[in-house]
């Protein structure tokens, strides 16, 4: 049992890394744990152009954050999975991992988000993967997922990754909607999808999204846009975005051979006889993200369901503290947003923990206040608003009384 650390952070993504350097600089002994072999979390997959033309290279950003945390004195272990978390009688937390057990007064959960599945017939065939998995294969492992892919699902994450796959020279045959069933919900409704595309098209981080969306911008009415929308789609950097077509089944004997697609009405109903086969050797399912909060649940933290934030969120205050003594959260576990917001939240968590632990160089009240303001500013400046009501939902969460 290792109990030398003041703070153990689960997840070395943007939030966890930033929290580690903030807390270590304030004088705390910090350990960062991550289950991937490399620190950086989902930053590692990110590569896009900012509106000014500069490139956001997530691998580089991650390296800088790692360097900062190590220089501040934080320790880091990768390839370690935390399996359980428990508050013990001595007012400390016990953390179980696949490589030993730790005891610590403060725990920060910065576990990020996970991808939702969107099942359809054939989705268990080899060659079907989540779009995030394709991103990791491409940008982190430099492995080609296949020769010709089909993306099922249209959302902000999917569009960003489609652009990355294009940069990597991977051919995509089409982006289609998921089939309508009890699980796909609004993701299979052309009108709802169009609204969500419009929302971020304006603020798109790269030219592809912006130019591709021009068509929608010019159309006065959604319904008109949907009626006029060509069945074969509108090309976005060479990939047809088919808002009026959905996948019916992924076809293949031992692995993906293609996708059966069909045209749909403006209301999302299948048009009989319009089925066609699209050849492909891999399929990316883009089901969106939800906060990964299993450890908070195991620890006994209360939750609130907030669809704007992506699902069940551990109750927490603006300084990232949960109602459980010594347990903090930061990053996408508190709601799905951009890496920059996660970085800003990580700083809040690191500073609040340092203050609560009465660290040697504990930050002043003003410094913590300032870091919380920084989160709001970052959110306002964010290029992609994952949901229009994020700020309101956040405020609602912070108002909910802590037990």
């Amino acid at each position, binding site marked *: 049992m290792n109990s030398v650390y003041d703070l153990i952070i689960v997840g070395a993504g943007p939030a966890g890394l930033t929290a580690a350097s903030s807390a270590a600089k304030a004088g705390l002994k910090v350990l960062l744990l991550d*289950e991937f072999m490399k620190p950086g979390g989902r930053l590692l997959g990110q590569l896009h152009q900012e509106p000014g033309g500069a490139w956001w290279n997530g691998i580089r950003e991650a390296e800088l954050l790692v360097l900062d945390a190590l220089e501040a004195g934080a320790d880091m272990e990768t390839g370690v*999975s*935390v*399996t*359980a*978390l428990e508050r013990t009688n001595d007012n400390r937390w016990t953390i*179980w*991992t*696949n*490589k*030993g*057990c730790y005891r610590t007064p403060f725990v920060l959960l910065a576990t990020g988000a*996970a991808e*939702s*599945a969107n*099942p*359809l*017939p054939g*989705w*268990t065939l080899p060659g079907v993967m989540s779009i995030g998995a394709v991103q990791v294969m491409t940008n982190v492992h430099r492995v080609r997922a296949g020769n010709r892919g089909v993306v099922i699902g249209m959302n902000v994450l999917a569009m960003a990754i489609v652009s990355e796959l294009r940069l990597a020279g991977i051919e995509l045959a089409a982006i289609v909607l998921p*089939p*309508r*069933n*009890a*699980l796909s*919900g609004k993701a299979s409704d052309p009108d709802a999808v169009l609204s969500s595309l419009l929302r971020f098209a304006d603020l798109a981080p790269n030219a592809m999204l912006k130019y591709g969306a021009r068509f929608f911008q010019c159309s006065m009415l959604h319904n008109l846009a949907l009626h006029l929308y060509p069945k074969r789609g509108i090309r976005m950097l060479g990939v047809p975005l088919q808002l009026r077509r959905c996948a*019916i*089944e992924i076809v293949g004997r031992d692995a993906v051979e293609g996708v059966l697609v069909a045209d749909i009405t403006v209301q999302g109903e*299948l048009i009989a006889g319009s089925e066609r086969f699209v050849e492909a050797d891999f399929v990316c399912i883009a089901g969106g993200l*939800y906060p990964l*909060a*299993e*450890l908070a*649940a*195991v620890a006994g933290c*209360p*939750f*609130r*369901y*907030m*669809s704007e934030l992506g*699902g*069940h969120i551990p109750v927490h205050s603006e300084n990232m503290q949960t109602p459980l003594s010594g347990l903090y959260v930061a990053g996408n576990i508190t709601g799905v947003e951009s890496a920059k917001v996660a970085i800003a939240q990580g700083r809040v968590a690191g500073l609040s923990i340092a203050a609560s632990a009465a660290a040697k160089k504990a930050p002043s009240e003003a410094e913590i206040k300032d870091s919380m303001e920084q989160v709001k500013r970052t959110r306002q400046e964010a290029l992609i608003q994952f949901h229009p009501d994020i700020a309101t939902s956040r405020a*609602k969460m912070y108002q909910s009384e802590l037990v």
Partner: protein
Amino acid sequence: MKDASIIVCRCEEVTLEQIHEAIRQHACSARETKLRTRAGMGICGGRTCRPLLDRLTMPSEGDSLTDFPLKVQPPVRPVSFAEWGQSS
């Protein structure tokens, strides 16, 4: 589209139709659906289909939902008996 050909829980090969049928027949909660169909009880511990089961059994949207519909049990990641034994 046939719900019978949509597998929701890959580990236990439970289909959307089977889950719908259980919910229809027994007006199941998320937990009861899991126990009746075995969806979410496979080797991965429900890491992929737990959110799907939650979605299918969610009563209605709103802030009144405070807890995870399906209880989360440790270990939250697959771990070998050897590792489990050593860590405690």
